[in-house]
């Protein structure tokens, strides 16, 4: 089966600034692709190109095996939620939602049914007769969602569709989208800034930066085996600790203030260059005794800061000249200025080359 969406060598410029550089992605039917990346990296632009709303500068986009270069947006059979909503200001909410169906000649009864369904899912039944100008931000966003959800396209494009919703509603909407995905086997490209959204929804995540794809992979791959320093740093909150370290045979040496360097032994480092960056997520550094396993190794660290945060307590220590965060249970006895034995789970560690940022293991 041909992939539902295949983007190869895509380039896109505005004037002389190149926004997208050599993008290659493909997704199969039923895939849920989540695009993440810092603000301004070209996510919306990429969606616009897929939808055919911006002319592309180079490369090709295939939907369902067909080259889309000369196909107009309306014939691409996609549904899209715009980051800026782009609701039709003169139409009521109901008409905003049914417009696409009407245009496609869906019969009135189906329109009504779908409208009711979607309105209920999105909890906007009460506003169906209002104009967009009379809605709150979150309500507008849901209408924008509704406009896409009533459709049954080959491909959904969502551009940060939940950013203006409250946490509760967002969780509900997330599960609605997930249901939609399962029920219809819909293919989806989804832009979000919400890491949880990305992790829970995606079957595939694409991390972009400055118009270049950094990594494509499943959420687990992205989270556990980031392809480079950027991805490591970008994904996860609080971010992964990136600790400068030196390789000594099968040992890793990390500086700590006021004491000899920590020495951790890890057979994986054999053959790596001398200077590396060691990446370890806060949850993989625990208080000694609270984490067991063959790869767990302990070392005493000077605690600089203790930050209780409701369900957890974060402690910060300086390792390799960097502030390193560890996530501890709430009952920890850690106190600033004192020394604490921390357990490092070396089974989860990533190594990067300091200069190129490339992953080494």
């Amino acid at each position, binding site marked *: 089966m041909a992939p539902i969406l295949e983007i190869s060598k895509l380039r896109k410029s505005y004037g002389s600034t190149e926004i997208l550089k050599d993008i290659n992605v493909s997704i199969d039917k039923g895939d849920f692709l989540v695009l993440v990346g810092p603000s301004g990296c070209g996510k919306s632009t990429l969606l616009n190109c897929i939808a055919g709303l911006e002319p592309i500068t180079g490369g090709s986009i295939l939907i369902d095996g067909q080259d889309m270069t000369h196909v*107009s947006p*309306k014939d691409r059979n996609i549904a*899209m939620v715009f980051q800026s909503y*782009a609701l039709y200001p003169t*139409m009521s909410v109901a008409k905003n939602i049914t417009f696409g169906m009407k*245009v496609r000649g869906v019969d009135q009864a189906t329109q009504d049914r779908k409208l009711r369904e979607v309105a209920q899912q999105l909890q906007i039944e009460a506003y169906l007769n209002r104009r967009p100008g009379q809605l709150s931000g979150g309500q507008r966003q849901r209408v924008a969602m509704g406009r896409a959800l009533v459709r049954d396209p080959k491909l959904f494009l969502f551009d940060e569709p939940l950013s203006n919703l409250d946490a509760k509603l967002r969780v509900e909407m997330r599960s609605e989208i997930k249901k939609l995905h399962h029920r219809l086997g819909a293919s989806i490209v989804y832009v979000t800034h919400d890491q949880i959204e990305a992790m829970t929804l995606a079957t595939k995540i694409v991390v972009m930066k400055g118009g270049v794809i950094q990594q494509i992979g499943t959420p687990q791959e992205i989270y556990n085996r980031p392809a480079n320093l950027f991805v490591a740093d970008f994904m996860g909150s609080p971010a992964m600790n990136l600790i400068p370290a030196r390789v000594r045979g099968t040992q890793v040496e990390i500086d700590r203030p006021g004491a000899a360097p920590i020495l951790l032994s890890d057979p994986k480092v054999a053959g790596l260059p001398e200077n590396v960056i060691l990446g370890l997520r806060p949850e993989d550094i625990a208080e000694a005794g609270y984490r067991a396993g063959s790869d767990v190794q302990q070392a005493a660290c000077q605690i600089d800061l203790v930050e209780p945060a409701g369900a957890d307590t974060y402690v910060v220590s300086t390792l390799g000249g960097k502030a390193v965060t560890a996530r501890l249970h709430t009952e920890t006895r850690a106190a600033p200025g004192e020394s604490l034995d921390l357990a490092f789970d070396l089974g989860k560690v990533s190594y990067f080359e300091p200069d190129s940022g490339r992953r080494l293991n």
Partner: protein
Amino acid sequence: MTDLAASATPAARPRRGAGRIALRWGLYLLLCLFALYYLLPLFVMVTTSLKSLDEIRSGSLVALPRDITFEAWRTAWSGACTGIQCEGLRPYFWNSVLLAVPAVLISTVVGALNGYVVAQWRFRGANIIFSLMLFGCFIPFQVVLLPMARLLGLMGIAGTIPGLIFVHVIYGIGFTTLFFRNYYVTIPSELVKAAKVDGAGFFRIFFAIFMPLSLPILVVSVIWQFTQIWNDFLFGVSFSSAGTQPVTVALNNIVNSTTGVKAYNVDMAAAIIAALPTLLVYIVAGKYFIRGLTAGSVKG
């Protein structure tokens, strides 16, 4: 909608306090002063049309009529002589209606479509075409009379109402295109994008999204075209023949009598009658100046 209209105005908050009240009153005073400037000639015309000829000769220009008579109006409508016929403006009036209504509609629709293309469906050269059309607004009509006459003759519609409609449409679309284009460029292109994704085509987007947004500029365009066409004299007199002359030509005939006693009251009444449809259009169309239609469509 009225609520929206009120709330988006910069001065939307009710202002009280002495300074505010003074400001408000000053505003109204200013508006009324201007209203006087605009009304003065109309006042003169209306009062004159209601006076008898004797009173006009003897009295002051700005005086109110002593005894009001509608005789002049009746004469202007159905009795005034132009040439040997004494039918007033009535028959010509209908010529004008038959001429103006289709011409205004056609030129407005064509202009709206053109403006929509130029503003939202840019293709290479669209701006050049637009500039060329704009420049066309400036061609002096006297220049076009003779070659146009020739072409109308060749097309076989010389001296007919369709011929006149044709001429007015041709020279009207420059303006209507200008109006609509310049209005449509202020509408965010995201709307077109959204509608395209929704599967709407060129015309669908135009009628479903743009038309409802166009009310104010539609009003402007209709006002302009209707005024231009209804009040046109040069084309009317050149491209009509007996029986298809528009009301302005008849009005001109009534007003410009080279001999005889000048019946100013009839002239004025005739002028006002001739202007009534335009006034009506203004009053009716004016209602559709509504604010804030784009509010809430787009962030940023």
